[in-house]
């Protein structure tokens, strides 16, 4: 009988229990066991950043983390990032600045950008570029993503308020 490990951790601020196989990745656990699908599988090798999550306040590739290693730790996914003021500012900036095309890389980049601004509130353009170097995007050419992160950063500093979208978004 293969081993199962019972773990307990905080997920997006709420206590969570799960039973996982030892070889299961945090990504599989989040998506297939818990059902939070905002974290994406892009490569399974830590090369694309689509599965970026926060663990104890720093970002990691969920595909490279053993789920069992979540035990006792504080995990935040895109679903949790969304609910924060910084997450909201980023989301608005990503929408307004056209940083989203197919959108598959977007949640991972949102989480990475959130962490970048958390640890470096005055990130300049070069810092933003380096900050998201572990996140691949095939659609946008990154330019609008970089602009969006910079805009969200500016909002946090209270410099230029992000314009409210004139158009009410669907959904």
């Amino acid at each position, binding site marked *: 009988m293969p081993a199962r490990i019972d773990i307990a951790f905080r997920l997006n601020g709420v206590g969570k229990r799960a039973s996982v196989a*030892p070889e299961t990745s945090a990504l599989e656990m989040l998506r297939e066991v818990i059902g939070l699908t905002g974290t994406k599988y892009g490569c399974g090798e*830590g090369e694309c950043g689509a599965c970026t999550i926060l663990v104890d306040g720093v970002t990691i590739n969920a595909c*490279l983390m053993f789920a*069992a*290693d979540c035990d006792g730790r504080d995990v935040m996914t895109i679903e949790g990032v969304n609910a924060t003021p910084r997450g909201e500012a980023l989301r608005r900036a990503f929408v307004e600045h056209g940083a989203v095309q197919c959108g598959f890389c977007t949640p991972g980049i949102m989480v990475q950008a959130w962490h970048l601004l958390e640890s470096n509130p005055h990130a300049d353009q070069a810092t933003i570029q380096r*900050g998201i170097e*572990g996140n691949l995007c095939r659609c946008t050419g990154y330019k609008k993503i970089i602009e969006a992160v910079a805009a969200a950063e500016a909002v946090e500093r209270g410099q230029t308020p992000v314009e409210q979208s004139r158009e009410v978004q669907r959904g």
Partner: protein
Amino acid sequence: MTIERYCAPRTLDEALEILRAGPVSPFAGGTDLMPQSQAGRVRLAPVLMNLRRIEGMGGIAENDGVVRIGALTTMTQLMDSAVVRERLNILWQACDHFASDQLRNAGTLGGNICNASPAGDTLVPLLVLDARVELAQKPNGRIETRKLPLAEFLLGPGRTTRAPQELLSAIEIPLPAEGFYGAFFKLGTRPALDISAISIGLGALHDDGCLRSVRIAFGAVAPTAIRAARAEAELEGRLLDQDVIDAAVQAADTEIHPISDLRASGWYRREMVCNMLRRMLEDARSH
């Protein structure tokens, strides 16, 4: 790949007991083990041991001119450390070229060393810094440690002198003298997220136009990251003029054994070692 047991010991003692008992796949960041095992390139042992919870195996401390870095220290923690940035800057530079923020947050120094990739980013600066590794085991109910130079620890791609029952517990680096000059070069088109085709580390003390305590290391041009003793000897204590640089580059050329693989041909690697070592020495001269 049936794992019978997963464990996350809290103490080194406990971890060494588990190691002694039988085949174990230890991991820290998991950034190498996870993808390798999922792709079937590595067969996991029946016991999977998470080292990350071991207390006292992280942290960076300076004592009596030696910097001790716990094996569980992540690349990000290294980069955040004042002593690394100011006194071991060549290591800081290598960390800056290491993968991505996400991988720097997860990957540990101990893991990068034990993975023993010929292209391992931290190995070249650690060789330049004369780093020693500390290995611990518990053969007879007592923890025993041994320390050896990193150069002796590395045997080949993925191979080290670590015995199955041993853990790499710490890395010790003698603080270089004040004014130590260290430069790291990694060939690539990206700042990071790249396996280096070649890397070069250069460390030395400037002394009136000469270099002293010269240390040169290369990555990805031999089965392990290597020191280049002959090139160092050509430079040691000599006035750093064009002739000396030429001699050092020629010596380095004899010390490397680059292979051709999908990242570069052996010919190109050799050219790059020579060109870039030359450039680094010229930079050092004007420093």
